[in-house]
């Protein structure tokens, strides 16, 4: 019997209790305490779980929530780190909650979202059965350093894992797919087929233009967005791998959902038929998230029906297209954190034919990224295509003034842009400008989301995020 381990678990559990009583959603402190007391705590209590890990730049949370829905549909007894507690300490807290004081698992499966920069460190303690890597985009260079160092860190993390670990990788991302190159581990890929995406076009501001293996310039057969698509390197021959789950057509792209056709390879399922699926969130990036989750579910031999049902019915919450009903109006909260994700959000906002009322809440705390230069890499110019429908643009957050400057230089009418620093007023004045039946979109960075969600929670009775 390991008394140090038991004592660590008990103290950490108490810390969680106390934080709850104090109404703080303490997801990291208990894990930090546990590590101080017993550095091997995570390794020791996590080893009896079947672990599914999700990492990458964009889409980790949404992908995890769809996988969670698949687990639910299959009556799997699972735990998961819900609230963006995706660093080592938060993950440790999650496991501590999931074991008895003696360290015995209370559940069978653990679905763990891991920050891409923390992944390497986390895999020193966890041995997952499956790892889903969503994509690599430029994100918070002040914190993560260069994009290639993030990729290399994830690669080192994967290299450490058991040869039987299944990898689920984005075929269309040359960086992500490179993780499956020359590995002994079983790999399943997902991506867009040539028929489902547009012809290649020159895209100047992209993250991966040159071959990761030989520095030749990639060519594209088809292009989805950013650097995602049917890439190939004419110099060394590295190219997009064949996908085990492939989107072969987009039937409807609406501002609240997307209907697609997809198809599985033999390796993934018994049937190679085409399936039409309605993904319960808008935007091409959510098609990727749905494909990542479905590929993960099918590779774990869950049935097509349970996977399909998950994709069609899941709800994300916590700032990922979270919808709040306010009388006859709606508020939609959509987290923004880097140019690629932001561009995708702007894309589907302009799909709608409704008037546009948008608030941009930009903070520059550590979790948001202290450098806001990335706002200049977002294609706000795209909003000009919906110029006649734009009613009201509010900028707020610690860097609300910078956001107003950004919108001004995109060429939008400055009369429609207002800086309002007080969130209460953002909500009130934002809603007031919306007509009955309309929607007020709030696009916050991470810590701005926590703040405004706190206010919305009080005002409109939202769920606590750590539940």
């Amino acid at each position, binding site marked *: 019997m390991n008394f140090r381990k038991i004592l660590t678990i008990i103290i950490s559990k108490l810390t969680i209790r106390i934080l709850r009583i104090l109404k703080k959603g303490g997801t990291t402190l208990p894990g930090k305490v546990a590590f101080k007391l017993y550095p091997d705590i995570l390794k020791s209590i996590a080893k009896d779980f079947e672990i599914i890990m999700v990492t990458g730049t964009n889409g980790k949370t949404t992908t995890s929530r769809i996988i969670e829905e698949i687990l639910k549909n299959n009556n799997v007894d699972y735990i998961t780190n819900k609230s963006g507690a995706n660093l080592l300490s938060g993950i440790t807290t999650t496991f501590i909650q999931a074991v008895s004081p003696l360290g015995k698992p209370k559940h069978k499966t653990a679905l763990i979202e891991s920050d891409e920069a923390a992944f390497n460190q986390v895999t020193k303690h966890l041995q997952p059965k499956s790892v889903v890597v969503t994509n690599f985009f430029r994100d918070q260079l002040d914190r993560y350093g260069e994009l290639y160092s993030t990729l290399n860190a994830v690669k080192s993390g994967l290299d450490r894992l058991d040869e039987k670990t299944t990898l689920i990788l984005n075929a269309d991302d040359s960086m992500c797919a490179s993780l499956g190159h020359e590995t002994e581990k079983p790999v399943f890929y997902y991506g867009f087929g040539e028929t489902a995406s547009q012809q290649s076009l020159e895209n*100047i501001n992209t993250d991966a233009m040159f071959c990761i293996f030989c520095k030749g310039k990639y060519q594209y057969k088809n292009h989805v967005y950013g650097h995602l698509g049917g890439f190939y390197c004419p110099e060394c021959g590295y190219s997009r791998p064949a996908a085990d789950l492939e989107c072969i057509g987009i039937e409807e792209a609406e501002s609240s959902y997307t209907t697609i056709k997809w198809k599985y390879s033999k390796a993934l399922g018994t049937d190679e038929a085409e399936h039409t699926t309605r993904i319960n969130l808008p935007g091409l990036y959510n098609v990727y998230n749905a494909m990542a989750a479905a590929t993960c579910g099918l590779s774990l031999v869950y049935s097509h029906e349970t996977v399909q049902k998950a994709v069609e019915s899941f709800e994300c919450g916590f700032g990922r297209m979270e919808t709040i009903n306010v009388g006859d109006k709606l508020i939609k909260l959509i987290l923004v954190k880097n140019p690629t994700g932001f561009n995708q959000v702007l894309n589907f906002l302009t799909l709608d034919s409704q008037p546009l009322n948008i608030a941009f809440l930009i903070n520059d705390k550590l979790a948001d990224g202290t*450098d806001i*230069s990335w706002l*200049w890499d977002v294609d706000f110019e795209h909003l000009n295509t919906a110029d006649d429908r734009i009613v009201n643009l509010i900028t707020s957050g610690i860097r609300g003034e910078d956001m107003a400057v950004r919108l001004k230089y995109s060429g939008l009418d400055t009369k429609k842009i207002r800086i309002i620093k007080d969130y209460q007023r953002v909500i009130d004045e934002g809603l007031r400008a919306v007509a009955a039946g309309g929607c007020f979109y709030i696009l916050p960075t991470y810590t701005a989301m926590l703040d405004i969600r706190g206010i919305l929670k009080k005002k409109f009775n939202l769920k606590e995020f750590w539940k």
Partner: protein
Amino acid sequence: MYQLKICHLYPDLLNTYGDMGNILSLKRRAQWRGIDVSVTNVTIGDSFDSQEYDIVFLGGGQDYEQEIIQNDVLTQKGAEIKNAVEGSKVFLCICGGYQLMGKYYKTWDGKELEYLGALDLWTIGGKERMIGNIVFESELISDNGSPLKIVGFENHSGRTYLGDNVRPLGKVLSGNGNNGTDGFEGAVYKNVYCSYSHGSLLPKNPHLADHLISIALKQKYDEFDGLNQLEDAFENAARVTMIQRILK
């Protein structure tokens, strides 16, 4: 009608920290004054003839991209860039682009990379990155008679040192600047302006953007006698808020 021709060098590769904002600022501020603006992208393999442009912009990239352009910039465009600099062409060079204009970059473990040598300055790699908000003050540009306070964000591991022929762009009030020790930020030689500051630099510091547009137009048109004032409420709010927060 005045014309302003902007050249963006390696926009597909040297674009790490919102460098597009600098191009947008020059472009919009000229357009808002009725000046006809063109932006030409010049990258690897393209020919570069500085005669065709009034302002040349060179941004910063990640190490991977800097390596990729290294050969092209030295062998294909280097001589023309040096000619243009000596001929008083207006340049704005940020971060990696700033370093590239210098003589060499010595990595912290002693490896020396030859750079353009267009400016008498050089860079020594450091182990620690200098990351954070920066405010510096430039006597070269006036803000209603006092030296202009410029605000931005720096993120670099290279320490840059200036030779005798090059002046600093400003004096650091908060942050690291060129090398974290001598208290200076950026470099100016003839009409070449260099800075470590992005954020982006120009949109939030409209005086500096207008200064660059003015010297470019003055060179081109004898009769040019200055730019009219624009309404800069958002720009000033962004600039002043950050300066107050940082210098507090």
